[in-house]
Protein backbone atom coordinates (compact mmCIF):
# COMPACT_ATOMS: atom_id res chain seq x y z
CA UNK A 1 0.00 0.00 0.00
CA UNK A 2 1.31 3.39 -0.96
CA UNK A 3 1.51 5.96 1.80
CA UNK A 4 -1.17 8.64 1.86
CA UNK A 5 -0.02 11.58 -0.21
CA UNK A 6 -0.33 14.84 1.62
CA UNK A 7 -2.81 17.48 0.46
CA UNK A 8 -1.97 20.88 -0.93
CA UNK A 9 -1.59 23.81 1.45
CA UNK A 10 -5.12 24.89 2.47
CA UNK A 11 -4.42 28.58 1.85
CA UNK A 12 -3.19 27.89 -1.66
CA UNK A 13 -6.12 25.56 -2.39
CA UNK A 14 -8.42 28.24 -1.00
CA UNK A 15 -7.00 30.88 -3.32
CA UNK A 16 -7.48 28.50 -6.28
CA UNK A 17 -11.06 27.85 -5.16
CA UNK A 18 -11.63 31.61 -4.89
CA UNK A 19 -10.34 32.11 -8.45
CA UNK A 20 -12.68 29.37 -9.71
CA UNK A 21 -15.56 31.12 -7.93
CA UNK A 22 -14.55 34.46 -9.43
CA UNK A 23 -14.37 32.91 -12.92
CA UNK A 24 -17.82 31.42 -12.38
CA UNK A 25 -19.19 34.85 -11.39
CA UNK A 26 -17.52 36.58 -14.34
CA UNK A 27 -18.65 33.98 -16.90
CA UNK A 28 -22.19 33.27 -15.70
CA UNK A 29 -23.13 36.05 -13.27
CA UNK A 30 -23.87 33.55 -10.51
CA UNK A 31 -21.76 31.67 -7.98
CA UNK A 32 -20.97 28.01 -7.43
CA UNK A 33 -23.50 25.61 -5.93
CA UNK A 34 -24.08 22.05 -4.85
CA UNK A 35 -27.34 21.49 -2.99
CA UNK A 36 -29.33 22.89 -5.92
CA UNK A 37 -28.16 19.93 -8.02
CA UNK A 38 -29.55 17.49 -5.46
CA UNK A 39 -32.83 19.43 -5.35
CA UNK A 40 -33.01 19.35 -9.15
CA UNK A 41 -32.39 15.60 -9.26
CA UNK A 42 -34.93 15.01 -6.46
CA UNK A 43 -37.51 17.02 -8.46
CA UNK A 44 -36.68 15.00 -11.57
CA UNK A 45 -37.18 11.72 -9.70
CA UNK A 46 -40.50 12.84 -8.24
CA UNK A 47 -41.85 14.11 -11.56
CA UNK A 48 -41.05 10.72 -13.13
CA UNK A 49 -42.56 8.70 -10.28
CA UNK A 50 -45.61 10.83 -9.61
CA UNK A 51 -46.19 13.96 -11.74
CA UNK A 52 -49.22 15.00 -9.61
CA UNK A 53 -47.13 15.13 -6.43
CA UNK A 54 -44.51 17.21 -8.20
CA UNK A 55 -47.13 19.62 -9.54
CA UNK A 56 -48.64 19.96 -6.05
CA UNK A 57 -45.43 21.27 -4.48
CA UNK A 58 -44.21 24.72 -5.47
CA UNK A 59 -40.71 23.62 -4.41
CA UNK A 60 -40.52 20.84 -7.03
CA UNK A 61 -42.26 23.04 -9.61
CA UNK A 62 -39.56 25.68 -9.29
CA UNK A 63 -36.95 23.12 -10.39
CA UNK A 64 -39.07 21.67 -13.20
CA UNK A 65 -40.20 24.78 -15.06
CA UNK A 66 -36.91 25.65 -16.80
CA UNK A 67 -36.36 22.61 -18.99
CA UNK A 68 -35.22 19.17 -17.95
CA UNK A 69 -34.04 18.90 -14.32
CA UNK A 70 -31.43 16.35 -15.43
CA UNK A 71 -29.49 18.82 -17.59
CA UNK A 72 -29.86 21.89 -15.38
CA UNK A 73 -26.75 24.09 -15.15
CA UNK A 74 -26.01 23.09 -11.58
CA UNK A 75 -26.42 19.33 -12.22
CA UNK A 76 -23.85 19.50 -15.03
CA UNK A 77 -21.58 21.48 -12.70
CA UNK A 78 -21.82 18.75 -10.02
CA UNK A 79 -21.03 16.05 -12.58
CA UNK A 80 -17.98 18.16 -13.36
CA UNK A 81 -17.10 18.20 -9.64
CA UNK A 82 -17.23 14.40 -9.54
CA UNK A 83 -14.96 14.16 -12.59
CA UNK A 84 -12.55 16.87 -11.41
CA UNK A 85 -12.22 15.41 -7.91
CA UNK A 86 -11.76 11.87 -9.24
CA UNK A 87 -9.04 12.99 -11.69
CA UNK A 88 -7.30 15.11 -9.05
CA UNK A 89 -7.38 12.28 -6.49
CA UNK A 90 -6.12 9.76 -9.04
CA UNK A 91 -3.32 11.99 -10.34
CA UNK A 92 -2.16 12.78 -6.81
CA UNK A 93 -2.29 9.14 -5.82
CA UNK A 94 -4.87 9.69 -3.11
CA UNK A 95 -7.66 7.48 -4.46
CA UNK A 96 -6.42 4.09 -3.32
CA UNK A 97 -5.43 4.98 0.19
CA UNK A 98 -8.76 6.69 0.75
CA UNK A 99 -10.62 3.71 -0.60
CA UNK A 100 -8.78 1.31 1.67
CA UNK A 101 -9.80 3.27 4.72
CA UNK A 102 -13.37 3.42 3.55
CA UNK A 103 -13.52 -0.29 2.83
CA UNK A 104 -14.56 -1.06 6.41
CA UNK A 105 -17.04 1.62 7.37
CA UNK A 106 -19.09 0.68 10.42
CA UNK A 107 -22.85 0.59 10.12
CA UNK A 108 -23.15 3.30 12.75
CA UNK A 109 -20.92 5.67 10.80
CA UNK A 110 -22.80 5.03 7.57
CA UNK A 111 -26.07 5.71 9.37
CA UNK A 112 -24.63 8.94 10.76
CA UNK A 113 -23.62 9.94 7.21
CA UNK A 114 -27.12 9.33 5.87
CA UNK A 115 -28.73 11.14 8.82
CA UNK A 116 -26.31 14.04 8.40
CA UNK A 117 -27.20 14.16 4.71
CA UNK A 118 -30.92 14.30 5.45
CA UNK A 119 -30.45 17.14 7.97
CA UNK A 120 -28.22 19.05 5.54
CA UNK A 121 -30.81 18.56 2.78
CA UNK A 122 -33.53 20.10 4.96
CA UNK A 123 -31.23 22.90 6.15
CA UNK A 124 -30.05 23.73 2.63
CA UNK A 125 -33.62 23.80 1.31
CA UNK A 126 -34.75 26.22 4.03
CA UNK A 127 -31.69 28.43 3.65
CA UNK A 128 -31.80 28.29 -0.19
CA UNK A 129 -28.20 27.10 -0.45
CA UNK A 130 -25.38 25.18 1.18
CA UNK A 131 -21.79 25.84 2.12
CA UNK A 132 -20.80 26.38 -1.53
CA UNK A 133 -23.91 28.05 -2.92
CA UNK A 134 -24.82 30.30 -0.02
CA UNK A 135 -21.97 30.58 2.49
CA UNK A 136 -19.07 30.79 0.01
CA UNK A 137 -20.63 32.38 -3.09
CA UNK A 138 -23.02 34.62 -1.14
CA UNK A 139 -20.36 35.50 1.42
CA UNK A 140 -18.03 36.69 -1.33
CA UNK A 141 -20.65 39.16 -2.60
CA UNK A 142 -21.37 40.16 1.03
CA UNK A 143 -24.94 38.84 1.21
CA UNK A 144 -26.39 39.26 4.71
CA UNK A 145 -28.23 35.93 4.53
CA UNK A 146 -25.00 34.11 3.65
CA UNK A 147 -23.24 35.45 6.76
CA UNK A 148 -26.21 34.58 8.96
CA UNK A 149 -26.20 31.05 7.55
CA UNK A 150 -22.45 30.70 8.08
CA UNK A 151 -22.69 31.95 11.65
CA UNK A 152 -25.50 29.61 12.71
CA UNK A 153 -23.87 26.69 10.83
CA UNK A 154 -20.65 26.94 12.85
CA UNK A 155 -22.58 27.67 16.05
CA UNK A 156 -24.63 24.47 15.67
CA UNK A 157 -21.54 22.51 14.66
CA UNK A 158 -19.52 23.55 17.70
CA UNK A 159 -22.44 22.98 20.08
CA UNK A 160 -23.24 19.53 18.65
CA UNK A 161 -19.63 18.36 18.28
CA UNK A 162 -19.12 17.14 21.89
CA UNK A 163 -22.37 15.14 21.65
CA UNK A 164 -21.14 13.08 18.67
CA UNK A 165 -17.54 12.78 19.78
CA UNK A 166 -17.83 8.98 19.44
CA UNK A 167 -18.08 9.31 15.65
CA UNK A 168 -14.74 11.09 15.30
CA UNK A 169 -12.16 9.40 17.54
Amino acid at each position, binding site marked *: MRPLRSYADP*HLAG*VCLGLVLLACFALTG*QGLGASGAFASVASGVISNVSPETAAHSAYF*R*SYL*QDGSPWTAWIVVEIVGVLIGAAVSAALAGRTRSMFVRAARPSAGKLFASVAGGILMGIGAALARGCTSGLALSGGAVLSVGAWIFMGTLFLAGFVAAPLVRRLWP
Partner: protein
Amino acid sequence: MKWVRQLGISALALGLGAPFAGSSFRAPQRGLDLDSIARAIDQGSDHVSARQLAEWIRDRRPGLRVIDVRSPAEFRDDAIPTAENVPIDQLAKSHFAPGQTIVLYSQEGAHAGQAWVMLHSLGVTQAVFVPGGLADWREEVLHPSLPANASTAERAQIEALSHYFGGSPRIGVEQGGDMASATQTGQRPRRRGC
Protein backbone atom coordinates in the same frame (compact mmCIF):
# COMPACT_ATOMS: atom_id res chain seq x y z
CA MET B 1 5.48 29.17 5.25
CA LYS B 2 6.95 32.50 4.26
CA TRP B 3 4.83 32.77 1.11
CA VAL B 4 1.61 32.19 3.06
CA ARG B 5 2.50 35.25 5.11
CA GLN B 6 3.19 37.19 1.90
CA LEU B 7 -0.17 36.07 0.52
CA GLY B 8 -1.86 37.35 3.67
CA ILE B 9 -0.04 40.67 3.54
CA SER B 10 -0.97 41.25 -0.10
CA ALA B 11 -4.62 40.40 0.66
CA LEU B 12 -4.54 42.85 3.54
CA ALA B 13 -3.07 45.54 1.27
CA LEU B 14 -5.75 44.97 -1.38
CA GLY B 15 -8.46 45.04 1.28
CA LEU B 16 -7.23 48.18 3.00
CA GLY B 17 -6.88 49.90 -0.36
CA ALA B 18 -10.52 49.18 -1.19
CA PRO B 19 -12.09 52.16 0.68
CA PHE B 20 -9.95 54.54 -1.36
CA ALA B 21 -10.84 53.01 -4.73
CA GLY B 22 -14.20 54.76 -4.99
CA SER B 23 -17.15 52.97 -6.48
CA SER B 24 -16.17 49.59 -7.82
CA PHE B 25 -18.88 49.64 -10.43
CA ARG B 26 -17.98 50.45 -13.97
CA ALA B 27 -19.48 53.71 -15.14
CA PRO B 28 -22.56 53.02 -17.25
CA GLN B 29 -21.16 53.07 -20.76
CA ARG B 30 -23.41 50.57 -22.39
CA GLY B 31 -25.80 53.04 -24.00
CA LEU B 32 -28.83 51.96 -25.98
CA ASP B 33 -28.69 48.73 -27.91
CA LEU B 34 -31.28 49.84 -30.47
CA ASP B 35 -31.25 46.57 -32.43
CA SER B 36 -32.11 44.45 -29.44
CA ILE B 37 -34.81 46.91 -28.34
CA ALA B 38 -36.39 46.88 -31.79
CA ARG B 39 -36.25 43.10 -31.87
CA ALA B 40 -37.89 42.77 -28.43
CA ILE B 41 -40.71 45.14 -29.43
CA ASP B 42 -41.16 43.35 -32.75
CA GLN B 43 -41.40 39.93 -31.16
CA GLY B 44 -43.54 41.15 -28.28
CA SER B 45 -41.06 39.88 -25.70
CA ASP B 46 -41.06 43.36 -24.14
CA HIS B 47 -44.45 43.10 -22.46
CA VAL B 48 -46.75 40.78 -20.58
CA SER B 49 -50.54 40.95 -20.15
CA ALA B 50 -52.11 41.71 -16.79
CA ARG B 51 -53.70 38.27 -16.74
CA GLN B 52 -50.40 36.53 -17.40
CA LEU B 53 -48.83 38.53 -14.58
CA ALA B 54 -51.69 37.48 -12.28
CA GLU B 55 -51.00 33.84 -13.09
CA TRP B 56 -47.30 34.32 -12.37
CA ILE B 57 -48.05 35.91 -8.99
CA ARG B 58 -50.55 33.17 -8.12
CA ASP B 59 -48.10 30.40 -9.15
CA ARG B 60 -45.30 32.14 -7.21
CA ARG B 61 -42.98 32.12 -10.19
CA PRO B 62 -39.44 32.05 -8.71
CA GLY B 63 -37.39 35.17 -9.25
CA LEU B 64 -40.46 37.29 -10.08
CA ARG B 65 -40.22 40.96 -9.05
CA VAL B 66 -43.18 43.18 -9.68
CA ILE B 67 -42.10 46.83 -9.74
CA ASP B 68 -44.51 49.75 -9.41
CA VAL B 69 -42.83 52.79 -11.01
CA ARG B 70 -45.45 55.33 -9.83
CA SER B 71 -45.00 57.76 -6.94
CA PRO B 72 -45.10 56.40 -3.36
CA ALA B 73 -48.43 58.21 -2.76
CA GLU B 74 -50.10 56.46 -5.70
CA PHE B 75 -48.54 53.19 -4.61
CA ARG B 76 -49.97 53.52 -1.10
CA ASP B 77 -53.39 54.16 -2.56
CA ASP B 78 -53.64 50.99 -4.62
CA ALA B 79 -51.13 48.53 -6.04
CA ILE B 80 -50.81 45.04 -7.46
CA PRO B 81 -50.22 42.49 -4.67
CA THR B 82 -46.54 41.55 -4.04
CA ALA B 83 -45.37 44.67 -5.91
CA GLU B 84 -42.55 46.85 -4.62
CA ASN B 85 -42.44 50.58 -5.22
CA VAL B 86 -39.45 51.89 -7.18
CA PRO B 87 -40.30 55.37 -8.53
CA ILE B 88 -38.79 56.22 -11.94
CA ASP B 89 -36.08 58.46 -10.42
CA GLN B 90 -34.89 55.62 -8.18
CA LEU B 91 -34.80 53.04 -10.99
CA ALA B 92 -31.23 53.63 -12.15
CA LYS B 93 -29.92 53.21 -8.59
CA SER B 94 -31.66 49.89 -8.02
CA HIS B 95 -29.99 46.51 -8.26
CA PHE B 96 -31.51 43.79 -10.42
CA ALA B 97 -30.05 40.27 -10.32
CA PRO B 98 -29.67 38.45 -13.68
CA GLY B 99 -31.92 35.55 -12.70
CA GLN B 100 -34.93 37.71 -11.83
CA THR B 101 -37.94 38.42 -14.01
CA ILE B 102 -38.73 42.12 -13.60
CA VAL B 103 -42.30 43.18 -14.38
CA LEU B 104 -42.85 46.96 -14.58
CA TYR B 105 -46.21 48.64 -14.37
CA SER B 106 -47.61 52.14 -13.96
CA GLN B 107 -51.08 53.69 -13.99
CA GLU B 108 -51.77 53.36 -17.72
CA GLY B 109 -48.62 51.77 -19.04
CA ALA B 110 -46.74 54.64 -20.71
CA HIS B 111 -44.36 55.24 -17.80
CA ALA B 112 -43.74 51.52 -17.44
CA GLY B 113 -42.77 51.36 -21.13
CA GLN B 114 -40.36 54.25 -20.65
CA ALA B 115 -38.94 52.57 -17.56
CA TRP B 116 -38.43 49.43 -19.67
CA VAL B 117 -36.25 51.39 -22.11
CA MET B 118 -34.32 52.90 -19.18
CA LEU B 119 -33.59 49.48 -17.71
CA HIS B 120 -32.59 48.17 -21.15
CA SER B 121 -30.04 50.96 -21.49
CA LEU B 122 -28.64 49.92 -18.10
CA GLY B 123 -28.20 46.37 -19.37
CA VAL B 124 -31.21 44.92 -17.52
CA THR B 125 -32.66 42.88 -20.37
CA GLN B 126 -34.84 40.52 -18.34
CA ALA B 127 -37.54 43.16 -17.75
CA VAL B 128 -41.07 43.28 -19.22
CA PHE B 129 -43.91 45.74 -18.69
CA VAL B 130 -47.70 45.59 -18.46
CA PRO B 131 -49.01 47.68 -21.42
CA GLY B 132 -52.34 48.62 -19.81
CA GLY B 133 -50.89 49.16 -16.35
CA LEU B 134 -53.01 49.14 -13.22
CA ALA B 135 -56.12 49.96 -15.29
CA ASP B 136 -55.70 46.68 -17.18
CA TRP B 137 -55.14 44.85 -13.91
CA ARG B 138 -58.54 46.07 -12.67
CA GLU B 139 -60.35 45.33 -15.93
CA GLU B 140 -58.76 42.02 -16.84
CA VAL B 141 -57.94 40.46 -13.49
CA LEU B 142 -60.02 41.94 -10.69
CA HIS B 143 -63.26 42.65 -12.57
CA PRO B 144 -63.08 40.94 -15.95
CA SER B 145 -66.15 40.82 -18.15
CA LEU B 146 -66.67 37.19 -19.05
CA PRO B 147 -66.79 36.84 -22.83
CA ALA B 148 -70.17 35.52 -23.96
CA ASN B 149 -68.70 33.03 -26.41
CA ALA B 150 -66.20 31.51 -23.96
CA SER B 151 -66.43 27.91 -22.82
CA THR B 152 -67.41 27.05 -19.24
CA ALA B 153 -63.86 25.97 -18.40
CA GLU B 154 -62.47 29.27 -19.68
CA ARG B 155 -65.01 31.24 -17.68
CA ALA B 156 -64.21 29.23 -14.53
CA GLN B 157 -60.51 29.91 -15.01
CA ILE B 158 -61.01 33.67 -15.32
CA GLU B 159 -63.38 33.66 -12.35
CA ALA B 160 -60.97 31.70 -10.15
CA LEU B 161 -58.12 34.08 -10.93
CA SER B 162 -60.31 37.09 -10.16
CA HIS B 163 -61.46 35.61 -6.85
CA TYR B 164 -57.88 34.73 -5.92
CA PHE B 165 -57.01 38.43 -5.92
CA GLY B 166 -60.22 39.37 -4.11
CA GLY B 167 -62.08 40.65 -7.17
CA SER B 168 -65.30 39.59 -8.88
CA PRO B 169 -66.06 39.16 -12.59
CA ARG B 170 -68.69 41.34 -14.23
CA ILE B 171 -70.94 38.76 -15.79
CA GLY B 172 -72.64 39.76 -19.00
CA VAL B 173 -71.37 43.35 -18.90
CA GLU B 174 -69.76 44.58 -22.09
CA GLN B 175 -66.22 45.86 -21.66
CA GLY B 176 -65.66 49.62 -21.58
CA GLY B 177 -69.27 50.68 -21.03
CA ASP B 178 -69.29 50.74 -17.26
CA MET B 179 -67.76 53.91 -15.91
CA ALA B 180 -69.46 53.64 -12.52
CA SER B 181 -67.92 50.29 -11.77
CA ALA B 182 -64.49 51.47 -12.91
CA THR B 183 -64.47 54.43 -10.52
CA GLN B 184 -65.78 52.19 -7.81
CA THR B 185 -62.90 49.75 -8.22
CA GLY B 186 -60.50 52.65 -7.83
CA GLN B 187 -61.72 53.12 -4.26
CA ARG B 188 -61.34 49.49 -3.26
CA PRO B 189 -59.12 48.87 -0.23
CA ARG B 190 -55.91 47.38 -1.48
CA ARG B 191 -55.07 43.79 -0.73
CA ARG B 192 -51.37 43.07 -0.48
CA GLY B 193 -49.18 40.05 0.01
CA CYS B 194 -51.55 37.35 -1.12
